[in-house]
């Protein structure tokens, strides 16, 4: 606490670390999406292209949340 600059830097690192916790949810989400897609593709392989496209879209949406967390962390660290 005697050195405010160092304290601020330490808090920045802490904040960035806390911000990135949000990535966990996206990881679970992507797992669920891909799990469902693989099951669907195993049951009817004929629809694989459609399922794959939708799967990638779903992954992109789930991933976007993780990217927000990451962007927040990057901004805390480097701006």
């Amino acid at each position: 606490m005697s050195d405010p600059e160092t304290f601020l830097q330490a808090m920045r690192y802490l904040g960035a670390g806390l911000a990135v916790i949000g990535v966990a949810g996206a990881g679970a989400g992507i797992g669920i999406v891909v799990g469902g897609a693989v099951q669907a593709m195993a049951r009817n392989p004929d629809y694989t292209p459609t399922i794959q496209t939708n799967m990638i879209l779903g992954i992109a949406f789930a991933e976007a949340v993780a990217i927000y967390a990451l962007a927040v962390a990057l901004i805390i660290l480097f701006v």
Partner: protein
Amino acid sequence: MSAHATPQRRFGFWRWVWLAVMIGAAGLAWYAGGIWKAVPPAVVLPAEPAWPGLYLAPGIPFTNTMLSALLASLLVFGPMLWAVQAFVRGGKDVPSGFYQIVEMAVEFFWNTTQSAAGKWAKRIFPFTMTIFLYVLAVNLFKMVPIHETIGYTKLAHGNIQGYSTVVVGGVHLLDGSHPYTGEHAEAAPAEGEAGHGEAEAESAYWNSAEPCENCEIVPSIRGAATDLNFTASLALITMLMVQVFGVWALGPDYFSKFFNLKTIVSKPFFGLMDFIVGLLELISEIAKILSFSLRLFGVIFAGTLLLAIVSTLSFGGAQPLVFFVPGLLVGLELFVGIIQAYVFSTLALTFMSQATVSHHGDEHSEAH
């Protein structure tokens, strides 16, 4: 043609040359890695001018990311145009070489567009294909090693770690094994008067031929997608075109998606709900711009950062890892770059094809 006459050689000539080059480069890196440590990057979020004093217009610098985007599009669209023209002029029926790759990519995307957009595929396709190729070109061009390494020297300021340079033939080389350990003399007054000090630091380019003691390198060329301006402009154009396609397909009726006043009188309570849902739709349209731009920017910037940080780790002195681990991550980055280009264009395609479909049709059928 002469393939039948001469026996097919199992191992060609050039692959041995490439193997020798790769082994030589690895050996050189191993040897040089002991002398010159890799310099951890000075992470700066906004793009910087490609060269001091290089301006497009007063107040608008020609940034390093612009240079990268320009070079990437020239390097990709030039050969593509040439290949297509050569194929059309050649009059052959069977595609071959580079043109075949171009045709494969276009055909794959055409099929995707057709299955998603139906009769609107012809109008939507040029747009999504261009986005795919542009983002792909930019993301792959980012992996070329000239990025983030060539630039001009600047006095380090703020909390950026400076390094002393070695001058070889008039060129400043940043030396990672000689970090600047002195006190940040010019950083301290800059804290006091923020505005003035920052402006002073911005202009502190190192122009002399003398070795600099406390310098950082501002890259002249940097991956275009690591600039939020690039991704945000792509996202804005995309969402604007989504509205354009919506109006094109449905006429002014398209805007009733956002300002739904149709049922507000006939169904008092649920009509109001519909109106609020329409307003939410408007907000989600703005959120799409945000998510489009932040996704591409975040993934590419984080990837660049990851590569830069991993290549400056020491791995506890395990020298081989310093060269092989970044190599693996480069593979991951290539994959991510391709996937992000695909995701961006597929999402654009989905939003556009959704906008061309009237969704009041099924609402009416539900009501009946």
